[in-house]
């Protein structure tokens, strides 16, 4: 009787330290940030009096924050989409029994070993409108070379709130850099998925008379679904929380065309001492990440993911 109770108690005791640490350092600080976002702490000297949703209203009316939300939306969708498509294409290529398959696998995976800061600096040079790849394009006879991240164009520029809504052309340069770095991750994940599909399944499909394309479309692709979900979730919370890539590569950009919430949060908190406004941005970013990840974690995602660790 006593031993049984102890047996139930021991596992709890073992996880207790980590529960306490996470409670304080993750949820405690989320709660604290949440409170700060509702306070008047927009000065250097802390002022924690309650302000209600004043800061939230201010931020959502702010030109820069509205631009950030637009940029994040377009960045995330295009970044994740491109990574999925390119990653899958590379995985299928590398999965063929090519002679140098392992070599290419490493080549595509390698950019992932770099930090976003390195990627940002290098692509900043490559896509510099006056010294980078444009010199090459000019040598090839191109007249109007692209402006890359210097462009202030927004397509199609529909007035929404204070900003023009549409795809900021400049953010494409950042997406190129991001995709260059992260499509290798998508490839590796898809490759694992492809190689986990037993040969018998493909053979069975062939016996049933499926063409190569049909095999891919109706057999392989559905079986890669868990991989797609994994990649999407992982990349979504990279893209929603981007800071280093943008900070190193372009900064906020002219008219905030390449600004993201992470950069704004850093600058307004630590340069402008608007800590409550910074906390608002942090909370909005948290909520966005939660919207993307939580449903998958709670619902079918749990089954699809198996035991792949999200964090």
């Amino acid at each position, binding site marked *: 009787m006593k031993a049984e109770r102890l047996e139930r108690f021991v596992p709890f005791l073992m996880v207790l330290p980590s529960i306490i640490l996470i409670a304080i350092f993750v949820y405690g600080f989320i709660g604290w940030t949440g409170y700060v976002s509702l306070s008047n702490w*927009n*000065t250097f000297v802390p002022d924690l009096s309650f302000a209600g949703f004043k800061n939230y209203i201010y931020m959502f009316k702010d030109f820069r924050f509205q631009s950030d939300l637009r940029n994040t939306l377009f960045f995330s969708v295009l970044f994740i989409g491109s990574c999925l498509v390119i990653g899958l294409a590379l995985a299928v290529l590398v999965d063929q029994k090519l002679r140098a398959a392992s070599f290419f696998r490493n080549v595509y995976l390698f950019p992932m070993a770099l930090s976003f800061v390195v990627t940002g600096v290098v692509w900043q040079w490559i896509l510099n*409108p006056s010294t980078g790849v444009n010199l090459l394009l000019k040598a090839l006879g191109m007249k109007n070379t692209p402006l*890359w991240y210097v462009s202030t164009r927004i397509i199609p520029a529909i007035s929404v709130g204070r900003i023009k809504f549409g795809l900021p052309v400049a953010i494409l340069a950042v997406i190129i850099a991001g995709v260059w770095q992260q499509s290798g*991750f998508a490839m590796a994940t898809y490759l694992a998925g492809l190689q986990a599909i037993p040969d018998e399944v493909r053979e069975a499909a062939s016996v049933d008379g499926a063409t190569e394309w049909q095999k891919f479309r109706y057999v392989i692709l559905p079986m890669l679904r868990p991989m797609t979900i994994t990649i999407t979730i992982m990349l979504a919370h990279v893209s929603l929380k981007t800071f280093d890539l943008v900070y190193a590569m372009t*900064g906020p950009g002219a008219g905030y065309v390449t600004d993201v919430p992470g950069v704004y949060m850093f600058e307004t908190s630590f340069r*402008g001492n608007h800590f409550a406004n910074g906390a608002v941005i942090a909370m909005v970013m948290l909520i966005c990440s939660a919207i993307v990840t939580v449903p998958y974690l709670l619902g079918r995602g749990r089954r699809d993911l198996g035991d792949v660790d999200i964090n």
Partner: protein
Amino acid sequence: MNRFLKVSLVATLCAALLLAAGCGGGSTQSGEQNNTSSQTQTETQTPSSGESTTSTSSEKQVEIFSWWTGAGEAAGLEGLIQLFKEKHPDIEVINAAVAGGAGTNAKAVLASRMSGGNPPDTFQVHAAHELLDTWVAADKMEPLNFLYEQEGWYDVFPKGLVEMMSKDGNVYSVAVNIHRGNVVFYNKKIFDENNITPPTTFDEFFTVAETLKAKGITPLALGDKEPWTALQLFESVLLGTMGPDKYNGLFDGSVAWDDPGVREALDIFHRMLQYINEDHSARNWQDASQLVAEGKAAMNLMGDWAKGYFTTDLGLKPNEDFGWFTSWNTEGTFMFISDTFGLPKDIKHRDATIEFLKVLGSKEGQDVFNPLKGSIPARTDADVSKYDVYSQQAMQDWSTNKLTPSIAHGSAASPGWTEKIQQVVTVFATTGDVDQALSDLVTAAQEELK
């Protein structure tokens, strides 16, 4: 097959770890900066960070926190430290410099050290509001009136400067150097070839700009990848349309931000932006100055640290390769940017720090530091012969001109207000919406001037 699967899974896991590390990027950054700062410190730092140091050994140190890591400025700081060591061979100097232009990284490190109860003995801060509205407001600084009286500094620093560094009659920092913000540098060859004389008014500027543009030369170079350069251009225009008294009044509430002069400044600023290089947002200030040095652009409004960049880094000759003039309509006004050092409360080595501040404020100290950094001394009694032709002229102006603080460099307004003005200017530069910009500036002033 199976082996490949394993390898790929391991790779995926590694990717997950990398991503997790990437997500923590925001918070680890300040940690990394802390590391770099401690790497630049000498080994002797280690005992002082231990808690059980005796008071005698800790009195023999002074830790100087700055963002002076560039070529000339680092040499200047080193010169100061040498001078200090000659006078006080028993005191160990720890040079805790954090790299990063305009001190943006250093300020984040400083904030974490100050609030963590580990203040550096003295730290670099721009004069006036950058200090007064932050650490002085938070009651973390000691007044330096005693030092000013003891050393006779009230007589040698310009009264306007001392006033701007004071709050309620207490002065809080010692100014080491002065840079000028309202200067335009130009390519002498381009001006000579096109028979252009330096434009001193806005009308002359636009005439000249039109001429140059017609010949395919970029009239005005701008590099606003870091947006403060655009703000610096705007504040110089603002000073030109408002004049020094009204300009200064904008920041104490005596002049409203919907003054016609502000509207005029916005109009002129926006017109000027039609004459800048197309790739301005891919360049930092050095890249923009370089356009002038290479003859690709004619003019560049930049603080006179650009002079140091021209002469030291690019090897150009003043008055031969490049020239300068006071920005449009601001003759007789000196928009200054000044680095100062103060005395934080609760530091470990108060006596040694006071000795260091004495050297900083001394004529000898300022004459060692400034020729190397390329700035001019804040004291008005410095040895003119030690400075180059540009600086001699600037020193003359410094002691006679009216003084105005810079917004872009944190002297005119609190950091919070500065950030808001910066945002208005950044947005305005692309939208060109004068009414919106004006109403935003008025709102910002109402919120921050409380």
